[in-house]
Structures are given as C-alpha cells and as structure tokens.
C-alpha cells in the first residue's frame, strides 16, 4: 500500500512570499488532515476534509492560509503571505472514514521563512 505523499519536502522562502504544499493521501482514504508542527511541539490541526468538504478549519489562520481538496483526493495548502512564525513542518495525514481513527502521516514539508 503506497503511503501518503507530500511535496516538496523542503522549502525556504522570504517573509511575505507565497508558498504551496501538495498532499496525495492513501487511495480510498476519504478523510484528510493538514497539521502544523512547530519545532519542539506536537502537531496541531489546521484543517480536516471529508472527501471535498471541510469538516473543521477552526484553527486555520484564514487571513493567510487556505486549503482545498477539489476532487476529494489530493489537497493543497497555501500560505500567502508567509510570516516568520510560519516556519514549521506541515504534515498531511489521511484515514478511512470508518474504523479506529488511526491516521497515516506523510513525511511532511519543512518550511523555513527568512
């Protein structure tokens, strides 16, 4: 079974620039999550999708962050404009809709904002 794919793996940008991350979940996984992990902390949920609909985006800073999953498969997360405090690892995870809620994580994208 192929895992969750993410790209790019690393990104360095200047503050106020824009950046986009891509995620392709495990085939058949209807639920997709984006997490932000700041160095030394645990991952924090940004947004949760069920198919192509948003389930929870209460912790997404909507003034600068946006995410979409138009066809209910792969997803993109965008930051525009980036701030220094956005430096973090952005993790994508997916899971079956039913079952025990075990989530499968991608390798993450490490973003550095200078």
């Amino acid at each position: 079974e192929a895992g969750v794919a993410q790209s790019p793996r690393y990104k360095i940008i200047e503050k106020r620039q824009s950046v986009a991350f891509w995620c392709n979940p495990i085939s058949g996984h209807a639920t997709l999550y984006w997490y932000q992990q700041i160095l030394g902390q645990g991952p924090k949920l940004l947004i949760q999708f069920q198919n192509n609909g948003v389930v929870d985006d209460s912790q997404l800073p909507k003034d600068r962050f946006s995410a979409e999953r138009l066809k209910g498969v792969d997803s993109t997360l965008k930051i525009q404009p980036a701030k220094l405090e956005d430096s973090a690892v952005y993790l994508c995870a997916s899971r079956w809709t039913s079952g025990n809620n075990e989530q499968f994580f991608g390798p993450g994208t490490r973003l550095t904002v200078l």
Partner: protein
Amino acid sequence: SQQGEEDPQALSIQEGENATMNCSYKTSINNLQWYRQNSGRGLVHLILIRSNEREKHSGRLRVTLDTSKKSSSLLITASRAADTASYFCATVGNQAGTALIFGKGTTLSVSS
C-alpha cells in the same frame, strides 16, 4: 491548543532497559493513541487504546489508560537503539472521527 502533556520531556536509557512515558490530558476522550516520530520514518502510529480499555499490549509496547485520572502511560520493554525517537500521545474526543490532539512529546534516546 495542546490537549496533553507528556512526562518526562526527555529520557535517556541504555539498550535493554525499559522506558516509561506518561501522558496527561484534559477533556473526556473516545480513544488515546501513541505515535512515534523520527527523521527517518516520520510520524508513525504505534497503538490505540479505547476509553473503555485499561491496558493494551503490542509486541514490546504496553499502554495503560486511567480515565479517572485522565492519564496514560507507554512502556517500551527491552529497548533498542532503533527506539530512539520522539513519542507523542494523541487523543480523540467523544465525537468519533475528530482530529487528533497531540501533546508535546517525550524524546527518548537509547544508547548502545
């Protein structure tokens, strides 16, 4: 916001020793999960324990859950150098299907 706190923040042991990590959380849960994260393999699910369970085993892992104290522990027996990683507990609220809420993690170093 973080749901829980792991204790200790860092742990250093020798190969063959046992490692115990603790996790406390704040609100009622549906289940609690433990994940491992290292640079080589990213974040990997280890074990899940439901709110009506008290103990669970998987290989060298043993997890306990005390819902009255809102706490859990992860025991790794006969540790190996390959167990070196950060370990996170994550909770799922009573509404099934909600996202994981992670603690800050315990960094485990196992030396040979």
